[in-house]
């Protein structure tokens, strides 16, 4: 009796061929993207999406063409933060035309596809029972389509804003083998740094992805009256030594930054002299410098 390897094909389904076609589609689209960068934190609530939105704006202000993938399929926020929530996606045989901010940054996000504010991401299924067995796969397929089927055009930078946790990064690496590196976001709290360390290990040691650097978000608070810097977190935790070696910048907490995110306005343009704006521009410069040096 013939063995598995002796049978010529999988009875005609050509599953490997179908998967290869999906991979080729991603690679073809990314051929016109110079650098792809993942933004991750491991922990939620550290301002990762806010940083992504502002990093994208900073890179765009520096004359780059920038695209952003909101890879947080279930908790998409970037369309609102980048002021394009009401955008209608264009659709052509060549791909889906992304939302474009007033600055020219391109964005694709699940939020642009959902019917209502309170509509969760709900996939077609005979039953939602046992959805844990397939839901994550569905999300990765969605992410693949976001990357492959969006008409990005030529980009200098494509930023991928990952959801909290470490599980999505391996998926991204499979989709984007030439990932330029990872920007890790943390806040000055022991809890955050404990979790973020795991993300760094996953990226650096498990997946061999370059760590572009760490951004310390909400690092301190600048008094709007006297300009004095105060720690925002009670202990004023010092950044972990391992993180200090690759720090890209410390972004102070600024209520106006949060408000800009809510309003979808451009903080960097409105408050160019604010300490947070300067820190964000510095982060963008260091990201550029890192990727310029990388092969």
């Amino acid at each position: 009796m013939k063995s598995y390897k002796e049978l010529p094909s999988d009875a005609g389904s050509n599953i490997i061929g179908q998967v290869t076609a999906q991979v080729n589609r991603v690679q073809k689209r990314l051929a016109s993207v110079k650098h792809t960068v993942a933004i991750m934190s491991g922990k939620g609530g550290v301002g990762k999406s806010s940083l992504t939105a502002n990093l994208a704006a900073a890179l765009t202000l520096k004359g780059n063409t920038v695209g952003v993938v909101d890879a947080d399929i279930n908790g998409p926020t970037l369309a609102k933060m980048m002021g394009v929530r009401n955008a209608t996606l264009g659709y052509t045989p060549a791909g889906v035309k992304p939302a474009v901010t007033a600055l020219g940054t391109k964005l694709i996000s699940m939020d642009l596809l959902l019917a209502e504010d309170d509509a969760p991401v709900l996939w077609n299924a005979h039953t939602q029972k046992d959805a844990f067995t397939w839901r994550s796969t569905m999300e990765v397929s969605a992410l693949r389509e976001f990357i492959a089927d969006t008409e990005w055009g030529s980009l200098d930078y494509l930023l991928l804003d990952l959801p909290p946790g470490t599980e999505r990064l391996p998926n991204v690496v499979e989709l984007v083998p030439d990932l330029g590196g990872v920007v890790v976001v943390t806040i000055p709290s022991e809890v955050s740094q404990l979790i973020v360390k795991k993300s760094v290990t996953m990226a650096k040691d498990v997946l061999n992805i370059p760590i572009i650097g760490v951004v310390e978000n909400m690092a301190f608070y600048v008094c709007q009256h006297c300009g004095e810097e105060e720690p925002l977190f009670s202990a004023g935790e010092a950044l972990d030594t391992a993180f200090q070696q690759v720090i890209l910048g410390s972004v102070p907490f600024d209520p106006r930054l949060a408000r800009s995110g809510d309003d979808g306005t451009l903080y960097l343009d409105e408050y160019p002299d604010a300490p947070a704006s300067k820190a964000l521009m510095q982060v963008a410069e260091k990201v550029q410098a890192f990727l310029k040096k990388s092969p």
Partner: protein
Amino acid sequence: MKFLCTDCDTAMKFKDVTRPEQGSVTALFECPDCFTEIAMFLNPSETQMLKSLDLKLGGNNEAAQPMQMVRSQLETAKTEAMPNEFSAEVSSGGTAEGGKCPFTSVISDAFQEEPERVEPTGPVWSAEALERLERIPAFVRPMAKMGIESFAKDNRYDEITGEVMDAARGNFPTQF
């Protein structure tokens, strides 16, 4: 996955696939030598996994359409998310049939459920209950409807009324 006709020692070929019934797909394979057929049943989870991967049993000779998986499988998508630009082109070709995505019927045809069989003995909906059903958010309505009907059958109700809905309410996270 490969299949062997043990009588002929020949690789079996894909023959046909049915649309899901109760979430389960059936694929038929045939021996090219003796024409023996076998049926492979995918349970709902396996069927769903195949959908999630956007893969098709029996191969896929159609050109991939932009975001075809998301557009055909996202239940909670807004209808205007993908506007008319391409729909118009497709319509002129005579293949689009409207709906939220001009390719939905093509893309996911193999995964669309067979129309539900009408069971004459099943519970019927009263006008009041149907009105209440319409007030349930659209994106959870199909699930709620299925759950209420299942509850009514299990409890031997012939008609789904407001009282039956109230009784079933405790079984669902969505209020109606």
